[in-house]
């Protein structure tokens, strides 16, 4: 027996939800407004609506060239994409076999290992900034994409392992056993049965690693000092300096940086939902 909710309760619920949406979107709208305003300065008005439309800020950001006349934005965009993709690939490639071992095999330190890995997640990343700087310096990896990938992949690894271990544990052991009876070696069972079954979880884990690297600012700002080597978040920050604050360009840049992430999110959202429920619901 179901009763219809009274209209005034629905009204209240919707009012509350709309308030929450406005609260979440208001700053975003301001960024959009700033990016589209030719003046590029925050106005004291309450309504986020540009006084005049212009794409000058976007043009200035995306077409930025350095003193030597090379396309600086393109280089920084490449840095960001390279670092984020390499981080996702490296951390997931390492986490997948490790998580599988932790989910399926018993070995000395299997539980303690996972606990230690998770404990490392409690420290803020910045805490390691100075030692990491020294290490990267020693390895001559400052101002390189490889250095950033190394740091990001290491940081993303524990969470990726944690997430994937849950996914592998949710896959019934009989699937592998069936494959092995059917004629597969343990490796074939892993590659042909377990990995495909874990695909949604792997996609989600990749996305998390990609985003963490794509958005990371503090470590990148610490390790990178040449404009050539900047990732986009670091490049963006340079628009708002001590003497000069180009808010319009900053906002335009912020939009340019977030759009790819939103696109990726949109593309894999089907997997995302599957991956998030994969651990909790038995198929």
């Amino acid at each position, binding site marked *: 027996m179901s009763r219809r909710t009274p209209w005034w309760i629905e009204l209240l619920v919707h009012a509350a939800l709309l308030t929450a949406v406005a609260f979440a979107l208001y700053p975003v709208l301001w960024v959009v407004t700033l990016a589209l305003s030719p003046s590029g300065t925050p106005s004291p008005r309450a309504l986020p609506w540009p006084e005049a439309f212009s794409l000058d800020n976007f043009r200035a950001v995306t077409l930025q060239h350095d003193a030597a006349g090379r396309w600086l934005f393109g280089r920084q965009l490449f840095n960001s994409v390279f670092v984020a993709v390499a981080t996702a690939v490296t951390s997931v490639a390492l986490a997948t076999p490790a998580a599988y071992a932790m989910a399926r095999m018993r070995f000395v330190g299997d539980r303690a290992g996972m606990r230690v890995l998770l404990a490392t997640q409690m420290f803020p990343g910045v805490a390691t900034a100075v030692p990491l700087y020294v290490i990267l310096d020693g390895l001559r990896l400052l101002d390189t994409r490889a250095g950033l990938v190394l740091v990001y992949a290491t940081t993303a690894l524990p969470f990726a392992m944690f997430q994937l271990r849950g996914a592998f544990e949710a896959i019934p052991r009989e699937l592998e*056993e*069936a494959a*092995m*009876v*059917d*004629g597969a070696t343990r490796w074939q069972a892993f590659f*042909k049965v377990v990995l*495909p*079954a874990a695909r949604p979880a792997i996609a989600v884990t990749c996305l998390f690693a990609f985003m963490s690297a794509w958005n990371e600012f503090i470590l990148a700002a610490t390790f990178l000092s040449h404009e050539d080597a900047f990732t986009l978040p670091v490049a963006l920050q340079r628009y708002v300096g001590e003497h000069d604050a180009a808010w319009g360009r900053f906002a335009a840049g912020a939009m340019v940086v977030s759009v790819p992430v939103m696109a990726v999110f949109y593309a894999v959202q089907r997997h995302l939902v599957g991956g998030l429920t994969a651990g909790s619901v038995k198929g």
Partner: protein
Amino acid sequence: MAAVTLRGIRKTLGPNLILRGIDLSLTKGEFAVLVGPSGCGKSTLLRTVAGLEEPDSGTIVLGDRDVTRSPPRDRDIAMVFQSYALYPHLTVRDNLAFGLKLRGVDPKEIASRVSEVARMLTIEALLDRFPREMSGGQRQRVAMGRAVVRRPQLFLFDEPLSNLDAALRAQVRVEIKRLHASLGATMLYVTHDQVEAMTLADRLVVLRAGSVEQEGPPLEVYQRPASRFVAGFLGSPAMNFFNGSIDATGRFAEAPGLRVSVDPARFATLPPGRPVLIGVRPHDVIPDPDGAIDLHVEVVEPMGFEAYAHGTVGGVAFVARLDGDAALPRPGERLPLRVHASSVHLFDPTTERSLDPGRS
């Protein structure tokens, strides 16, 4: 030549001794059912034959090859799992073809074998579906198809019907029997369901706590159980038991409220006064005004074609099967019953082994 020979299989899991030295041998084309209560080791034994568990000691010979240390893929066996274990990312067609592809069978040959098996199991319409798009019964058929298509020398079934509802279970049971007849393959089947065990088996193997308690053709095991355990496990409702003794004449066994003849062909050597455990199946008693089993009826369950009268005999719980169309007793009434001597089972009260010399 034996298709499967197990010798002295022992297996411990952690601190528990699961299998205590199992000897078993199946001839080619035989359908053997391993049956027993949960925890008796039947699934572990099956998994050991499959190669998914390694025995601590003992040997497994399939055909003429010792496969004790071989990985599952080298044993030429197929297994149907309780959970079906269909590959979720593959269509039915690819699920069936999986094992053949791994073995490098020619694609044309694969296609023809897949469609042949699909026809045999009437799953042709499902070939392009994914496991998640099918009902439990359909998945079960696909799981069987995946085993059949490989044409293995031994089929293993691990409680394949326990996730199906009762009606479907009865239907698939018949189908498995038909499959066995048409393939003529050797099959080893694990179940805790005595109906499956009785109906499917050429040979019934009753396991208890990691040992073979009794094995033989199902009817023989049912009619001449070797121990109280087997007698109580097979048959529903379960056998009624009484602590009693052989009377002074040596021709009857007695307990309070009950006096039954002893079959001289089976129990000739029992001395007067010997304590015995008397077993009588509910289906073996007949109402008879002169009967020497004095049942105090407490509850009557009419089932239509038959009825069960629950009550006590001499203070001990007793169930009797009655014909459904006969005049049924009422609760509180006394119902005298008799039993034919050949249906009386006698066990040693301490060892609980049958006192039938041909059995114990």
